């Protein structure tokens, strides 16, 4: 049986109470793992969210979203951030940021502009795909981006996403689909998220992988990296302490 994961719940404007409702709904909808995006200084909120998830019996993944303006700024922000969050996502606002994020092993997820016009100029192209295939970073598509666009903008967005997914599949770059929910109404079932990939010519089984096995692989890989006995991919200290 598939275990589903939504790697992108945004921290809601109304705070922890609304987040608790969102997490409760995620649990009701059958999610096994949920990632919540926190700011870098939200230590207390992370602690409280962990307690909520523990009560609900779902696995919480801590995530942070970075929005640097330059590649240099990205490198600066990434320093020391890796041990604090299980998932690091970068919103690529310029070409140089996209290139740097795609080749940096500390970056897990790449996000591209939500506006359809901007997205046509800056999208996950073949160069990013080549860099990402070497660094294991994955492309993330947020359903909230698709639902937020109206009429012809949505059509343009889907066309760009179709190209991105084709590039990612060609070079075997992992990609996932997440809700990007920031309120209760945007939390959807995993098949309801996956169904948007069928609109961009993906098969149903592959689409379901992007809300189950693919995100879980990313989480598992990062958790292994965060262990103190981790040395490098495939190598760890036998009998070492676990964090």
């Amino acid at each position, binding site marked *: 049986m598939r275990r589903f994961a939504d790697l992108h719940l945004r921290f809601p404007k109304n705070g922890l109470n609304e987040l608790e409702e969102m997490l409760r709904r995620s649990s009701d909808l059958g999610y096994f793992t949920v990632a919540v995006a926190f700011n870098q200084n939200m230590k207390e909120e992370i602690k409280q969210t962990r307690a909520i998830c523990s009560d609900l019996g779902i696995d919480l993944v801590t995530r942070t979203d970075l929005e640097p303006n330059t590649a240099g700024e990205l490198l600066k922000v990434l320093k020391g951030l890796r041990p604090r969050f299980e998932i690091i996502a970068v919103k690529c606002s310029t070409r140089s940021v996209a290139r740097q994020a795609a080749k940096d092993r500390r970056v897990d997820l790449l996000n591209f502009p939500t506006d359809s016009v901007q997205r046509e100029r800056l999208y996950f192209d073949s160069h990013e795909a080549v860099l990402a295939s070497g660094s294991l970073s994955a492309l993330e598509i947020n359903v909230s981006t698709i639902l937020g666009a109206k009429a012809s903008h949505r059509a343009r967005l889907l066309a760009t996403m179709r190209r991105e997914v084709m590039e990612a599949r060609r070079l075997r770059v992992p990609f996932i689909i997440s809700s990007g929910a920031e309120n209760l109404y945007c939390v959807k*079932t995993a*098949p*309801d998220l996956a169904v948007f990939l069928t609109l961009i010519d993906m098969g149903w089984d592959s689409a379901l992988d992007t809300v189950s096995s693919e995100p879980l692989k990313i989480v598992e890989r990062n958790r292994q990296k965060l262990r103190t006995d981790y040395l490098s991919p495939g190598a760890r200290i036998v009998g070492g302490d676990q964090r």
Partner: protein
Amino acid sequence: MTFRRRHRYALFKVLSSSCLGEKDVREAIQRSVLELFGIYGLSVIEPKVVEYDEKQCRGIVRCNHLHLPLLRASLASITTLDDKPVSFLVVKVSGTLKALRRGS
């Protein structure tokens, strides 16, 4: 040989701040299919609300069995109704009404 149409039945739940009537739900589904797939899409998907319980905010919608993903995408795309946020969640899908009602 005769051609027999096959259907899929989807049990859905509507989440909203206020209760929606059956007419609102039917119109919302039709509008969403039209917006995403146009008139051709509406003609091949053939969505039809079979029943809707206003108290429980749950209903059953029928579609052509080949185009279930398109119906699911249409339901998932409904985000507002009369400027109020709503969400349509597909709870269960079956090939017969009997099987759908059995488990729900």
